[in-house]
């Protein structure tokens, strides 16, 4: 029954004359989502321009599409009719060959095998730890998946179990890689490499998981100015980030020439030091630079720019210029926005 409802007195007029690109907004991502040109963009009923779909909106009724993440099949409107693909998220459509999925604007991190993540120990259980990685379930780290002092080929003994807290205790931060996933999404981590392990000498921060671009290497080493020395940045794909003073990797600490080590040397080098809880000496200049980088990453994430090594470098340079010009530096708010814009401008040029 058509009842005429009077709209409320206008407060904010929604701008809806977005440029009509003719339908679907294609995703050009490093992930390699290829957009198929040549598919006539299907304008399904109810879909407005601008490229955003919202929950409950019919994306397409064409049966040639397979449905991916973020969609579900609705009941056919008429008996014998085809089911239509309906969006269940607010986001943009991404088409990969015949697969139609929705990329949400914001989403919780979902672990994939091979991801580098930064996590915090929640709980110590017998022979393993429970780690918080900002995913729907906490991940597990088995005792057999970490490097034990005395060599990686050492057998795990019961003494190790009893001394489990000497390795990782509650609240410790670590960087690890996702080894396996169970079928309901529980991740299992491992730190079987010298570049993974407990984190120290630095600062921890969180950003939105979607803001970290998936790259080849998530560990950056930056040379900072103002006497800060070298700084390591661990960009966890789950949105957890750790910025620390650069520590010389253990492989180089031994040999006088700093050459790479043989397998036998490795055993000796993976010493007790990797699980130490004591920070090294960090100079005030380094601390200042660490703080600056943290603010830059926070500003990038807050303003919706994806964080990767290029943006972090550009952002850092822009932040240095701001500082050198003597302006207020806060990280969020106006100063942060300016830094981000300067960095984006630089990227456009370069």
């Amino acid at each position, binding site marked *: 029954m058509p009842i005429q409802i009077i709209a409320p007195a206008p407060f904010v007029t929604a701008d809806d004359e977005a440029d009509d690109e003719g339908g679907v907004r294609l995703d050009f991502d490093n992930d390699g989502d290829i957009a198929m040109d040549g598919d006539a963009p299907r304008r399904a009923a109810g879909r407005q321009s601008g*490229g955003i779909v919202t929950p409950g909106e019919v994306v397409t009724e064409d049966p040639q599409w397979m449905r991916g993440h973020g969609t579900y099949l609705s009941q056919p409107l008429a008996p014998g009719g085809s089911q239509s693909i309906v969006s269940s998220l607010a986001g943009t459509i991404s088409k990969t060959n015949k697969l139609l999925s929705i990329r949400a604007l914001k989403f919780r991190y979902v672990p994939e095998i091979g991801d580098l993540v930064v996590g915090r120990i929640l709980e110590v259980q017998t022979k393993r730890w429970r780690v918080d990685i900002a995913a729907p379930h906490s991940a597990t780290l088995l005792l057999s998946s970490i490097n034990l002092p005395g060599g990686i080929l050492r057998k795990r003994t019961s003494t190790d179990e009893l001394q489990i807290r000497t390795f990782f205790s509650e609240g410790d931060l670590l960087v690890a890689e996702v080894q396996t996933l169970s079928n309901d999404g529980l991740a299992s981590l491992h730190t079987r490499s010298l570049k993974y392990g407990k984190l120290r000498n630095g600062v921890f921060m969180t950003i939105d998981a979607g803001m970290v671009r998936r790259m080849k290497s998530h560990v950056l080493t930056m040379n900072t100015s103002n006497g800060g020395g070298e700084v390591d940045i661990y960009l966890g794909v789950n949105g957890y980030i750790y910025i620390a003073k650069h520590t010389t990797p253990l492989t180089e600490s031994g040999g006088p020439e700093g050459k790479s080590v043989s397998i036998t040397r490795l055993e000796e080098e993976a010493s007790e030091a990797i699980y130490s809880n004591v920070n090294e000496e960090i100079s005030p200049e380094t601390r200042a630079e660490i703080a600056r980088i943290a603010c830059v990453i926070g500003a990038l994430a*807050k303003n*919706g720019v994806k964080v990767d090594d290029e943006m972090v470098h550009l952002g850092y340079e822009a932040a240095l210029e701001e500082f050198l010009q003597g302006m207020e530096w806060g990280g969020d708010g106006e100063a942060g926005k300016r830094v981000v814009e300067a960095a984006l401008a630089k990227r456009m040029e370069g």
Partner: protein
Amino acid sequence: MEGLRNDGRRWNELRRIHCQLSTSSTNADGSSYIEQGFTKVLCNVTGPAEPSSRQKVKQDAATVTCEVYFAAFSGTDRIKRGRNDKKVQELQTAIQKTFASVILTHLFSRSEITISIHILSQDGGTLAACINATTLALIDAGIPLKDYVCACTSGQSTSIFDNEGSTPDPWLDVNYLEESDIPSLTVATVGETEKIVALSMENKVRIEMLEGMIAVGISGCAKVKGIMDAEVRRYGKTRLEAATGE
């Protein structure tokens, strides 16, 4: 004053609605704020995450938990409501049950989605505003939903009776004064389907008037959905533009 209510609206006019997504900068995965007239509600959503207690683990679906907090200054009198207050529990159960059927919970087994609502000001239509705020916060958090859940109130003024004996028009979107005066109901629909997912009426009303009240409420919900959808699209556009650097 022919045909105007105590705040100057007509019988089929909604109050001013203002809504925002992603209002919280803290750990909430999704957040929203909505104002319907003077009723102001803030909502935070976290999840899917590890369940807070063993009991809440469901093997094949996510558990939906809801917590409602009334600010002591939200009503006309200052009342502090504890967790065991009847009104608080009523709202919690209503919202939890409504959204448990709309969120696609089978996608996240053994996890928990927590909805946390803060009511800052009550001026009628509290349940409706809470439902609308929750929908927006869930969309912001990227939790898959079947569709929008939009709620609206409607009331039946029995004071004016036509000489022919026909019932007067029901009033859409009642405020606090109207709520305490006339019988009213809250109805929540799913998207544009006009199917009702939640209906709550706590006053006595003649059954003949019921149909009219529900119909007006449903039309109001459709209008509310349009407003909320426009805001979600606007917000999405600004985010996308920022991400690609204009």
